[in-house]
């Protein structure tokens, strides 16, 4: 088979076309697909588009649009800040529970003992803060236990 015969054979393939109504159906299929893709868009994209449409419909300038966007951002950042500040107070669990416990004196046969103060806590004490005098001290065996502050020696 020579080059010319091959080219002639290949040219026949251009007549392989779908039925004429196929292209009308294709257009409908494309429309259907475009609609379904629109519905599958993420929420934030739809929201952003609506905000943009709102500002464009009310013929507001770029500056007012930027101002409003900045406002939304500030509120958002403040909200996030408040939300993240909350859990920080929960942090020191010992500080909250300690004032209500009378005494915790762990005496084990091990080489060290954990001693907690039994002094009533001050009602004005800030939650999350334990004064130095109230903090547990680790006392090594064979030494006298003292409740005095180290600075008082």
């Amino acid at each position, binding site marked *: 088979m020579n080059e010319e015969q*091959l080219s002639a054979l290949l040219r*026949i393939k251009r007549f392989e*076309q779908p039925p004429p109504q196929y292209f009308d159906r294709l257009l409908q299929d494309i429309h259907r697909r475009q609609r379904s*893709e629109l519905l599958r868009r993420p929420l934030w994209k739809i929201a952003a588009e609506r905000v943009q449409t709102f500002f464009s419909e009310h013929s507001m300038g770029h500056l007012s649009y930027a101002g409003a966007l900045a406002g939304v951002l500030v509120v958002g950042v403040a909200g996030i800040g408040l939300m993240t500040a909350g859990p920080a107070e929960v942090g020191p669990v010992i500080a909250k529970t300690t004032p209500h416990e009378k005494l915790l004196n762990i005496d084990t046969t091990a080489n060290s003992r954990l001693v907690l103060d039994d002094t009533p806590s001050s009602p004005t004490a800030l939650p999350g803060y334990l004064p130095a005098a109230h903090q547990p001290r680790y006392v090594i065996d064979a030494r006298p236990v003292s409740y005095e502050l180290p600075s008082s020696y």
Partner: protein
Amino acid sequence: MQDDLSRKQDDELIARTQAGDATAFDELVVKYSPRLYGLVYNMTSNHEDTNDLMQDIWSKAYRSIAGFRGKSSFYTWIHSIGVNMTINFLKKRGRRFTLSLDDIDSNVQHDKEFIELTATSTPVREADLSELQKRLNEAMQKLSHDHRAVVTMFDIQGMPHAEIAKILGISEGTVRSRLFYAHRQLQNFLTEFHS
């Protein structure tokens, strides 16, 4: 490949589409789908796959048309999307495919070129038309994706080398060399049919 008037019309339709006029995009779909179908079908040899790919290609084009800046013609742009998506599809499909051969369009019987081809004393005259199609499609499927794309655009769709080079993003020399090797391979595959 594309005259100035056609390109001007395309530019107008693209501008309207970019401004949000969906009917303008429909006009582009109607205008280019038959040629695009030929390109994709001759690369896949399967009408169902071609139908799926056509929808994928036009969906991608619609999503990307906002970024179309007119550096190339819409014709080149949509064909580039078509070829790339089809090659990616073929790579994923691998060897698992079946040829779906429909009857040649009835218009072909009245086509001058077709009449000449089947009337002269070529091997084609003796062959059954459906067998001919089958052989050709099988031979085409034996080519690599890149070679098949070049043969489809040049031999079947009649595009010039320069246009193919633009669509594929390669040099004209590469187009010519791919065509040369593809033709040699096809000739070898069809030798049995010829004899």
